[in-house]
């Protein structure tokens, strides 16, 4: 299991290749990568991600451990950036390795649902018209009820 909270960008290709190569006893590898998407008006200049150093690592570790136990994962990877990101930049990725695809998919979705609403990150979007904190979505909170 590896958890990384970092300001620097990451190489999704290298991370995926490393993670996959390390698990030849696992038949199924799922990755999710989150990318900063421009707003609908196409005016997003940048996004700033604030986090709670210390608690972030702790929360992500707990979420990853829960997923590993619950779905008997061979391995879990969570990378999440903070700081300033431009549209098109990768914010985060998770990867899960399991013997079978169902567990790998479910665990990855669980990780995403939990880190959306339970890991202490906050996004602020900057356009030429000003800055605004991104509101938490009701549907993200609702998503947790299925687990």
């Amino acid at each position, binding site marked *: 299991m590896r958890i990384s909270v970092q300001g620097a960008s990451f190489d999704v290709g290298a991370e995926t290749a490393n993670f996959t190569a390390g698990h030849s006893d696992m038949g199924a590898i799922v990755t999710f990568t989150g990318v900063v998407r421009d707003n609908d008006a196409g005016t997003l200049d940048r996004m700033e991600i604030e986090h*709670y150093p210390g608690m972030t690592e*702790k929360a992500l570790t707990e979420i990853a451990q829960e997923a590993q136990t619950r779905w008997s994962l061979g391995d879990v990877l969570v990378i999440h950036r903070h700081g300033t990101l431009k549209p098109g930049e990768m914010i985060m990725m998770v990867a899960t390795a399991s013997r079978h695809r169902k567990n790998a998919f479910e665990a990855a979705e669980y990780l995403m649902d939990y*880190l959306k*609403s339970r*890991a202490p990150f*906050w996004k*602020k979007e900057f356009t030429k018209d000003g800055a605004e904190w991104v509101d938490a979505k009701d549907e993200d*909170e609702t998503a947790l009820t299925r687990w």
Partner: protein
Amino acid sequence: MKVLYFAWVRERIGLPRETVETEATTVADLVEELRAREERYALAFSDLSALRVAVDQELCEFDAPLAGAHEVAFFPPMTGG
């Protein structure tokens, strides 16, 4: 007690962290003390349903006890991922 603020809570209160001398026994008591301090605190804590709290880096409810706690953090709902 170390008290931390994040995102718009930090912006409204105007600082990221401070040390608070308090006898509060629950998070809710601490919130009452902070609210009473100044308008900017009253504003930041005006709607607790829009806030989340962590005691010693664990999410908890506003009625959580503060006995033995070192660090309390207030912030809006999280938006990771």
